[in-house]
Structures are given as structure tokens and as C-alpha cells.
């Protein structure tokens, strides 16, 4: 029994991580775009094939930690959720597992791009800021320190 318990305890973090990567379908996009009750929701869009995305995610995580009550940070990879093993491994190596994480789960990724932000051409990284007042800002490319400061 003890051995089984130990095995389960050891298994728990990896499985919990695997389960926390959520598939994002077109139907679920409107919920993500709902304004938060207060502060900002920051949707950090990234891709496995984007070397600029890692430092950008780290910078956004640092910003969120500085304003934990105002900023709700979540990550969305434009890669197919079918690649969940590679995505989860990258999230772990970037130490981003503490944030809600989504991966595209629609046959046409361009369609989710368009639904998330019709003024976005799919370039990564992309940050979408949704404020409590309903306003939205989208920024492409790794954020400069000045851009980061303006996010909130």
C-alpha cells in the first residue's frame, strides 16, 4: 500500500501538469475574451517554433508576480494540442506551469487567430491585454521594457 501511495504521489505532478494544458477550440474563445472583474487579463500567445517567445513569457510572468492581484496571466500556444507532450515539456523548461495554459485545438489555427484578435496576422509572440473596462490591446513581438510597463 505504501509503495502504491508513493508511486501515486510521484506520478501526481506530471499527470497534473499534463491535465492542466487545456485544448482551446473556437467555441471557447469568447470566454477567454470576457473582460476580467478587475485589473487585466493578459493572454500570452506563443509557439514552439518561436525563439522570442520564451523571454517574453518570462517577462510577463515577472510582471504578473509584481502585480499578483491585478494581473491574470494565461498562456496560449498556437501549436496543436496534439503536440501536448512537447508543449508541456517546454512550459516546464520555461517555468510557466503555474499559469493556466491552452493549446489550439481547431483544425484551422488561423481561425482561432482571427477569433482571438482579428487584427493579428499570426506572428508570435503576441500579447493580448483585456482590461476590466472592456478595452483591449494587442502587441506583436517581444515586449520592450517600456511596452511592459504600459501593460498596466
Amino acid at each position: 500500500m505504501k509503495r502504491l501511495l508513493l508511486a501515486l504521489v510521484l506520478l501526481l505532478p506530471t499527470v497534473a501538469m499534463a491535465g492542466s494544458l487545456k485544448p482551446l477550440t473556437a467555441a471557447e474563445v469568447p470566454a477567454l475574451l470576457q473582460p476580467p472583474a478587475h485589473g487585466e487579463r493578459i493572454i500570452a500567445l506563443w509557439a514552439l517554433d518561436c525563439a522570442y517567445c520564451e523571454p517574453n513569457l518570462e517577462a510577463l510572468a515577472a510582471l504578473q508576480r509584481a502585480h499578483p492581484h491585478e494581473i491574470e496571466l494565461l498562456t496560449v500556444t498556437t501549436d496543436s494540442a496534439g503536440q501536448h507532450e512537447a508543449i508541456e515539456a517546454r512550459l516546464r523548461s520555461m517555468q510557466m506551469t503555474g499559469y493556466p495554459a491552452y493549446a489550439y485545438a481547431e483544425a484551422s489555427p488561423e481561425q482561432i487567430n482571427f477569433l482571438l484578435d482579428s487584427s493579428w496576422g499570426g506572428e508570435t509572440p503576441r500579447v493580448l491585454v483585456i482590461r476590466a473596462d472592456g478595452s483591449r490591446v494587442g502587441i506583436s513581438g517581444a515586449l520592450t521594457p517600456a511596452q511592459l510597463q504600459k501593460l498596466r
Partner: protein
Amino acid sequence: MRRLLIILLCLLSPALLAHEGMSVDMPKGPELGASAAFDSHGRLYLVDAADDHVRLRHSDDDGRTLSVPVEVNAIAEPIYAEGENRPKIAFGPHDELYVSWSQPRAKPWTGFVRFARSLDRGEHFSKPLTVHHDHAEITHRFDALAVDGNGRIVIAWIDKRDLIAATAQSKPYLGAAVYYSWSDDGGASFVPERKLVDQSCECCRIALARLPDGRIATFFRNIYGDNIRDHAYAVLRTDGQASQLERATFSDWQIAGCPHHGPGLAIGSDGVRHAVWYEAKGKPTIWYGQLDLGHAPQHPLAIATAGASHADIAVHKRTLWVVWNQVDAHGNALMLRRSNDNGAHFDAPHEIARNNGAVGSPQLLQKQGRAFVAWNTAAGFRLIEMPR
């Protein structure tokens, strides 16, 4: 203890279920990166990737039916076949069939550019070779393939060897380099690669087109100053001379990121360089223009804006076609604009096909003055003739 075990099992099961559910929901089937070309007999050939093989199919009825696939690489290997990375096909002067692709290596963003040829109309292929002589496990990918007027096979790609060397010396280096090589012996071997440029964009396909004199020109997204991602143009010299690079677009889109939108180039028999490219300095826009090296392009026209991606361009005499994917909330439309006066004016955009699933980048092809667009979709490959 038992209670703890039960709690742990309860915690595990939803996680396992979520995991299981995710894999069930995923789209299946081959990736949609594909290329097509007509041989001199008018037979259509198509390459894409499935199960770690580049596969070749042909059609004698303009794409309505496709042959049983032939495997280009007999031994399975990973193949990039999505987005801007897709297998390529081109023909030599006597219908020699050339295929190139990028092979992912173990580490993220790495790859080798691979090549194989068939001298019997695609029935058998040579053992694939790695085009570059540098075999470091780094980025060599986003291959582009063309055959010049003398039958030389020219391949250009994105290469990170100089980025890695600079980083090792703590020197700043933006993006990646463009390298190219060519084969003088019909693809039996490739000459040691040459560097075209340092610090260019690392994630956009490279466009190649043949000049009236037979040489191959390239048009690709470069980096100017602090991550200004405008485009450069050069003739890829194969005579030992250095290729002269010139800035060819002046959109001033600054982005420290991956646009994943490479340009298109078509050169008329009059030498006019017709180009399409994407930038999102303001709203995302696909532009048309005639390259005027060192200056902003002539006759610029915003072909399409939000939701438009992956344009291609072709020219025949004074007729131009521009096609692209246009996404909306319902799916993807394949769009066309045509010019009958060598690019001075274009007609209004119109939809020529639609698919509500996944679609690959459209590619324009020509056969005896007729233009077609090859469009690989999750619902199958389509070849659509342009309205005359």
C-alpha cells in the same frame, strides 16, 4: 492511509481524463505543407509529407485524380511540412524531377536541408543527400528550390551557424543567416554553401524566381537596424562572384518575433519584378509592388488586410494573378485578384474556393499560359484553374 489513497486517485482521474480527451479531439492526418508543379508534358506532380516520408503523386487530369504515392525517401525520417516549411518540387530541362525538404533534428528549431532526384518521371528516387556541408545540429531549414536557365539546381535556406558563433563570443546577432548552394551535376552533389547575408529573418519562407536571362533571384524578409523586418532582393550568383543584396521594401515594420509570413516573387519576360509581401506595422496587410531596388516598390497596392495570409503571385505576359488565404469566423476562403495591365491596376478581390477546415498556403502554377492554384486542404488537394 486508505482515505489518502482515494483522494489521490480522485485527483489523478480527471487529469488523466483531460489528457485522454485532448488527444481524441486532435485533428489527424498528414500536415498540409505541399508543393506542386507541372512537367513539360503537362503532368501535375504534388509533394507532401505523410508518416515520415515525402510522398510524390501525379495527375494527368489537372488534379481531379491523383496517382498512388511514391515515397521519395525510402528510409523514414522526420519532415517539416507545416506553415512556411513544406517539401518543394522543381523540374530540370529534361523533366528531371528534383525534391527538397527540411528535416527536423532533435533540438528545437534545428534542421537539415535534404534533396533527392528522380530521372524516370518519379518512379524511383536517389538516396536523399544533405545539401549543406555544415552538419552541425543547428537550424538549416526553410529550404527554397529553383532550377536556373542552365539547368543548375539552386537551393537557399535559413541557417543559424553565424548566430551560434556570435552568441558563443557574446556578440549581438539578430535573426539568422541565409545560405545557398547549387548543383552543376543535376543534383548528384552540391557545391559548398555560400552565405548570402547575415542577420535576416529566421522564420519566413524564401522566394525564388527565374530572371529572363535564366539566373535565379531571391526575395526574402531581412532585418534592418533594430528588428525592422523589411525585404531584400538579390540575384544568387553561381559564377563565383558575390551576390549583391539590395533593400527592396520599406514598410518599417519592427518586430522582435516570428512573422511566419514569407514573400512571393514573379519576374515577367520584360524583367519587371512583381512581388507580394506581408507586414503589420499598422493593420496586417498583404502588399503588391514592383521592386525598384534601393527604393520603395513601384505601383504599391494593399491587396488584402486583416485575416489575409500567405499570398503567391504569378505573371504571364501582362497578366498577373495574386492569390491568398482569407480567414474569417467561419473558415478559410481562397481569394484572387487579377491584373491585365502588368500590375498597374488589379480587379476587386473575389473568392474562388472555400474550406472550413485547415488549409495550406496556396501556390500558383502555369501550364501553356493557363494559370492554376494548388491548394492543399484537410478535405483533400485541389487544383483550381483561374477564370480566364
